[in-house]
């Protein structure tokens, strides 16, 4: 046999069949602990009201909305890798698309929590956000970017979930065929009774392609719409047309960095070094470098436009971002998002996984600070100096942020334990084909 797909299922399912490395349990324990911190913080906020946060005039959007934008952004690389790279036939994505898609789903669920936390009275959130008829037949304001966001995020979550689950179906069927009893029944139910017939594959492949084609403009639209939450207002520092592409590039940068930061330890925990290869990770780093340069360009253009527009309020905000009381956040953002990733131009660095891991973590820190910088530095100083104020997050907001990481990682780690972290059916497509190769055959004809 010239090539073989034998043993792929075995290798990938080893984590679901046997106990993973000890580091997995340590990571899960830390994640659950962080989640509990967040849960307690949210409970305190619900009991005592929004006064426990640092939010006050003029800053009503602080760390909570920063977290919302950060987590939505994290999700974007998952869709980029699963949908856009699928349409471009980038084969290296096949080994990491499942973990990237899982990251998207859990990141968007995490993001969705923050508007609920932010409204304070969470039990009224649906009434405020969704177009429900009420006694006066009063509907939501469809001209508001906040309502656009509700539709964009819920569509994004639904489509990402569908895309992820349909990708799982053939793999769950493969898991079914390895077990007996109740598990077999459960996996059979979850895989819709998939058997891998030519008819099933034929319609599945076409449908998967259309889902990818639908998800591609969706992913670009979602962060554009998130950026309009800011850009549609008159607030200096927000009211700029560069926001949609700037936000999308930033989202993909943070997402790629997050995929790398997740995949590297997970491939160790589940012994997947032979499936998720060093060159796949290198390709991801190249994508991170590309988006980092786009983000750096966007930072530059933003400053240039603020100066070139002649709008003194806009220019004052940008000057203060770099030199004012919040300049620490600004320079962390510049160093982490624009300067540190420049090391990725070196091939030696791209293959040094420790350095790449550290830089990717720093990029995530930088991207969080970018959102904090945009939100807070603009809100503290608007047109009237008498409105100006100051904002620092309180302990509750920090605890909620820690809790969001706990929530995200708990779900991700539980998923990795019970479902294949790598798409088995797709990874077979990048392995050498099992050919006898002894002459003309239909395989070669096609």
């Amino acid at each position, binding site marked *: 046999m010239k090539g073989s797909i034998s043993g792929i299922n075995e290798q990938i399912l080893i984590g679901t069949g046997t106990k993973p490395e000890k580091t997995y349990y340590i990571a899960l324990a830390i994640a659950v602990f962080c989640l509990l911190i967040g849960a307690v913080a949210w409970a305190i906020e619900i009991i005592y009201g929004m006064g426990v946060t640092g939010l006050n005039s003029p800053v009503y959007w602080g760390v909570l909305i920063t977290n919302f934008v950060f987590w939505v952004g994290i999700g974007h690389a998952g869709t980029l890798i699963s949908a856009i790279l699928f349409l471009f036939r980038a084969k290296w994505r096949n080994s990491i698309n499942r973990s990237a898609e899982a990251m998207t789903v859990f990141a968007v669920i995490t993001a969705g929590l923050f508007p609920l936390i932010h409204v304070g009275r969470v039990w009224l959130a649906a009434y405020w956000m969704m177009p429900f008829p009420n006694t006066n037949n009063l509907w939501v304001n469809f*001209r508001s970017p906040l309502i656009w966001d509700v539709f964009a995020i819920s569509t994004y979550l639904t489509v990402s979930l569908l895309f992820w689950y349909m990708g799982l179906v*053939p793999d769950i069927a493969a898991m079914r065929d390895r077990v007996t009893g109740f598990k077999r029944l459960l996996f059979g139910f979850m895989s819709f009774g998939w058997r891998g017939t030519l008819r099933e594959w034929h*319609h599945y492949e076409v449908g998967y392609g259309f889902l990818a084609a639908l998800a591609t403009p969706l992913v670009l639209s979602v962060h554009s719409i998130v950026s309009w939450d800011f850009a549609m207002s008159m607030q200096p520092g927000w009211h700029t047309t560069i926001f949609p592409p700037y936000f999308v590039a930033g989202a993909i940068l943070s997402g790629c960095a997050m995929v790398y930061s997740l995949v590297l330890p997970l491939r160790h925990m589940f012994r997947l070094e032979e499936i998720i290869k060093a060159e796949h990770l290198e390709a991801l780093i190249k994508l991170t470098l590309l988006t980092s340069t786009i983000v750096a360009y966007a930072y530059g253009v933003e400053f240039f436009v603020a100066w070139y527009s002649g709008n003194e309020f806009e220019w004052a905000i940008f000057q203060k971002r770099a030199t004012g009381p919040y300049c620490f956040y600004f320079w962390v953002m510049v160093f982490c998002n624009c300067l540190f990733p420049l090391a990725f131009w070196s091939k030696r660095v791209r293959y040094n996984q420790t350095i790449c891991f550290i830089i990717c973590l720093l990029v995530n820190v930088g991207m969080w600070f970018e959102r904090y910088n945009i939100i807070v530095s603009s809100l503290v100083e608007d047109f009237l100096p008498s409105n100006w104020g100051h904002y620092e997050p309180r302990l509750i907001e920090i605890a909620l942020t820690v809790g969001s990481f706990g929530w995200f990682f708990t779900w991700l780690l539980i998923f990795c334990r019970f479902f294949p972290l790598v798409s088995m*059916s*797709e990874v077979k*497509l990048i392995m050498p084909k099992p050919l006898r190769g002894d002459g003309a055959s239909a395989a070669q004809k096609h």
Partner: protein
Amino acid sequence: MAEITTQEEQGIVALFPYLDDFCQAVSRVGSDSDFHGHEVLSPTSYHELMALAEERYGPSPVRWFTLVGALSGMCTGFAMPLLMDYDWPIVVGGKSPGIYSLPAYVIFGFELMVLFGALATILGMLVMGRLPNPYGTVYHPRITDDRFAIFVPKVGVESSQAKLLHHLGAAEVFAAAK
């Protein structure tokens, strides 16, 4: 899913380890009346097999599900805010009711187009793939792993069909029930 529990429809399953042999066998048995009602099974969607599927089943109608879903989503996305605006006009900037902000509603048209299109695509994949299939037989656990298979109903392991499948490269031919 379901185990082999009935013997109502006996047949044979041929397992192939090689893709090129398998594609040749699928092409060979496709139009042969001796193999009427046969099933082709694969662990993944190799391009060669998808080309054979296209020949056999033609273009997948899933595209029409997507189109209809997307168009109905787009119409819903525009209709919903327009009707709600009509029901309760929100006067902005002193403009009289009856002026509808179509550019703002493009967002809803687009988002619901994608949402309904995706849901309809999933529906199409399931309907056209004849899923869910609670009564389908798992002929061999390696078919979702690393083996290709052809199931031929109502024939035995000593039949001419079994011999032909052996000849075409099947590593193993055994009796199975659908």
